[in-house]
């Protein structure tokens, strides 16, 4: 009974949260927390003025570019580390270092070294995210079942078929985990990057609203952003997961 309408339950929990928020504001009238209805109104204002779509598009573009590069770079590094012990030994402590450098430090250094520009912003995000993806993909490479690769070898399968049907499917769960974690982290870092060194994007807008103490607008932007991330998760990642892991 509980699991029959999982999508419904997800929506209900959001609605319940909104209702609780609205009621709490109506009851206690706090100074620093606007009601969700006020936030919605504000959101529509920002949308119709065209300013929110503009900044949102810029931020999403940054997220997309840095996400793709971080995934490619991280996967390549991780798979190399997983498959080649010597390379792993060389890279391992550097990886630990990279994982533990605070995002803020990388961002500041990138802006100082490469200037306050788009490239620096993207590099900062990619450098921050790549090690996490590499570590996940290294686990994936280590978990590759050699016995199944032996089947491909014994039957002399063409290299492409071995790669696509025997090797890659073993990595899908790790790709998914890396992509999920990656997305969640990348968009947070992109906002910080924008806040520190860009003159457009959602992060930049948030810093302006912060200076004006405009809480309603901060929440409106957050809401818009959360909706987009929900859409990516529900529209791309979850269907993909269902497709590649249906055999489970």
């Amino acid at each position, binding site marked *: 009974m509980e699991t029959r309408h999982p999508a419904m339950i997800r929506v209900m929990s959001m609605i319940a949260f909104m209702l609780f928020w609205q009621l709490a504001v109506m009851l206690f009238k706090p100074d620093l927390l606007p009601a969700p209805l006020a936030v919605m109104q504000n959101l529509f204002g920002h949308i119709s003025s065209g300013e929110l779509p503009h900044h949102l598009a810029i931020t999403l573009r940054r997220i997309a570019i840095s996400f793709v590069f971080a995934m490619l770079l991280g996967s390549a590094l991780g798979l190399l580390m997983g498959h080649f012990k010597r390379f792993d030994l060389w890279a391992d402590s550097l990886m630990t270092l990279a994982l533990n450098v605070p995002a803020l430090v990388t961002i500041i250094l990138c802006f100082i070294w490469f200037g306050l520009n788009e490239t620096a912003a993207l590099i900062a995000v990619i450098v921050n995210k790549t090690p996490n993806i590499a570590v996940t993909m290294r686990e994936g490479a280590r978990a590759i079942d050699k*016995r199944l690769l032996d*089947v491909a*070898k*014994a*039957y002399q*399968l063409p290299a492409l078929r071995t790669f696509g*049907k025997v090797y890659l*499917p073993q990595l899908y769960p790790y790709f998914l985990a890396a992509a999920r974690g990656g997305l969640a982290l990348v968009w947070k870092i992109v906002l910080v990057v924008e806040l520190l060194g860009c003159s457009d994007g959602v992060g930049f807008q948030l810093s302006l609203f912060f200076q004006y103490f405009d809480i309603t607008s901060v929440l409106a932007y957050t809401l818009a952003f959360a909706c987009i991330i929900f859409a990516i998760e529900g529209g791309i990642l979850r269907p993909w997961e269902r497709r590649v892991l249906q055999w489970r």
Partner: protein
Amino acid sequence: MALTYPIHIHSKTFSNESTPVIRDLEVALPGGEFVSLLGPSGAGKSTFLNILAGLDKDFEGNAALKQENGQPARISLMFQEPRLMPWLTICDNIMLVCEGTKTQRKHQALHWLQQVGLSGAENQYPAQLSGGMLKRAALARAFAYEPDVLLMDEPFSSLDIPAADSLRALLTQLHQARRITVVYVTHDINEALMLSDRILLLSSHPMQIIRDVAITEPHPRNVQSPALLALSQGFKQALTHPA
């Protein structure tokens, strides 16, 4: 049949051992025969199969199976476990090793699934099938590859007795219909007697042939028949007290 596959392994030593597992092993596999390698566990039988299958290239000698025209023989290998890809349906698992267009491969896969009695299971995933059905699928895969030589590494050892018996009967039937060369590794004397045209009795450390016996009893066989019982006794003795 004129074709034989000559194999000569001078020596095979694992890097973590000082003495060779296999030394000076010479076998002539007659084309179309069902040959069982019967020996104690750990004798190096699986190693030998891996060498024949081309999975283990770290040895001295010649184990390339060639056809009369000099072309390498097509070799199927059936492992101890079914080793199907869990993310592929049964049909896709068979199609994986087939050649040709997608339609041809599908046709071939369905044909072999029908041959092993798995019609109707083609769209299921391995996790949905029983152990015996998985072995059937692995057998279908091995035959669908259209091999000249089929290598089998104790393929039915983990099954319950009725399932193993019915798979052995199926294997005998398929072998008699196709007449491919089968090299069958086992440590079960009765299984070897049931299936083989020829049994090579092996010693361990290093692996060597201690007896080469042709079995001429017609199929279906009964291991309780006097001739096979006598052979069985002889093998038991030879395995417990190798000369």
